[in-house]
């Protein structure tokens, strides 16, 4: 008797926990149908960009200054100025490949400029601007590695990738026999490569160049085997913001400012 009562009590608690969690899910969905992001930006006089903090050349937090630096950051600043002049202050929030779509959807960031590839799948979740950078997926290996191209990724080899990136999906298609291990961010994946946890690290060449620059005992091999056009992502249904961003991007390209920023960061 005593036991049954207790069991029922615990079952109830568990069920309540489940309902509570499910309820949270519902709340989130309801805030999703929110107002226009562009209007909000103008009202708050600030635009929040989601950028990487761990990606050399694109978005990297400089430990000595505490500032985030890179191509994505400079481009974001230039875009903000182009769109709103000095009225709107650009702010930066760290995103990772894993968190960026979630942060857009719950309005923690207004636009994601974070080495994000435009894909058909992602277009269902977010809206993209025009391409702002053309990258392609490649492989980073230790110099002298037996892996020299994607064709060398046979059974028994291990490739390191980052959770939530297109490259981890692509590599499973292009080299189905290889084992893929996925890490939280590029810094951890690169550390794992240095520690010999895998034969190669795969992601966009633009990011890999940054790693090879940091540690010259690693090199890119085999060229690129995909096309990775980067776009700026905004929350679904904000066409006006996308149009504004596209216009600003185009005028930056026309004025030569875009090339200036690009040449500053991307040497290859």
């Amino acid at each position, binding site marked *: 008797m005593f036991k049954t009562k207790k069991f029922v009590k*615990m079952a109830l608690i*568990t069920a309540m*926990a*489940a309902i509570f*969690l*499910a309820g*949270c*899910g*519902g709340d*989130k969905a309801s805030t999703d149908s929110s107002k226009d992001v562009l209007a909000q930006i103008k009202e708050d006089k600030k635009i929040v960009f989601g950028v990487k903090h761990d990606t050399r050349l694109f978005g990297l937090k400089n430990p000595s200054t505490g500032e985030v630096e890179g191509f994505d950051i400079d481009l974001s600043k230039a875009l903000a100025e182009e769109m709103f002049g000095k009225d709107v202050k650009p702010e930066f929030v760290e995103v990772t*490949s*894993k968190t960026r*779509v*979630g942060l857009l959807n719950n309005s923690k960031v207004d636009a994601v400029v974070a080495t994000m590839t435009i894909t058909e799948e*992602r277009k269902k*979740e977010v809206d993209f601007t025009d391409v702002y950078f053309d990258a392609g997926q490649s492989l980073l290996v230790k110099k002298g590695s037996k892996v020299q191209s994607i064709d060398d990724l046979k059974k028994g080899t291990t490739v390191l990738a980052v*959770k*939530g*990136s297109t490259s*981890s*999906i692509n590599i499973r298609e292009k080299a189905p026999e290889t084992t893929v*291990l*996925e*890490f*939280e961010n590029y810094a*951890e994946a690169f*550390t*794992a490569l240095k*520690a*010999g*946890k895998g034969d190669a690290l795969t992601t966009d060449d633009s990011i890999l160049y940054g790693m090879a620059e940091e540690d010259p005992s690693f090199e890119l091999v085999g060229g690129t085997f995909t096309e990775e056009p980067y776009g700026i992502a905004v929350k679904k249904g904000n066409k006006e913001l996308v149009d504004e961003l596209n216009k600003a991007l185009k005028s930056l390209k026309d004025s030569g400012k875009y090339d200036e920023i690009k040449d500053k960061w991307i040497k290859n």
Partner: protein
Amino acid sequence: MLDFSILTTNMDSFLEGLKITIIASLIALLGSFILGTLLAVMRISPFKPLNWLGTAYVEFIRNIPVLVIVFFAYLAGNFGGMTAGTIGLTIYTAAFIAEAIRAGIMSVPKGQMEAARSTGLTYGQAMRIVILPQAIKIVIPPLGNQFINLVKNSSLLAVVAGGDLMYQGDLISAKTYVTFDTYVFVALFYLILTIPLSLGVGYLEKRLARSN
């Protein structure tokens, strides 16, 4: 409402993760119990160097975040993510178990040891026959809590690509973009493991209290 298609279409991944979480937790549980008991005995040993060694281990490990220990285990050794994660968890949990067991032994009145020794038992015999059986009763509730913590901490395997429940959740949410709901299911899977443990600990606690 929750998107149950996430659960049904990714059931294999969830179950694979659950399996690895269970295996890693069980191995770490066994390992940390053995290592922890050893450390506890060292810490109360009258032989000073052993005592120091045990104390140093406990103080050192207890004051480092378990995430850092898991990283060290992964990067320093030639192990895969799951093995390294399990080793890291064992090293970490052992320090807490050692403290729980030591506290249990210390809480047995001193007179018990003295009386046992005066009947002619050696230190080891007295420990085994008289002290430890009494200590175990006191130790079981805190040990149970450590084991529950261990199961939850095993989610750290995810950061070293250990293939556990949390790792699978990361991959599923990255693939489907249904982040929130995926982690709700991950939480429910953890509850399936921890609620029975929690109940079991409560039950043992009651039974042991009765036998006093």
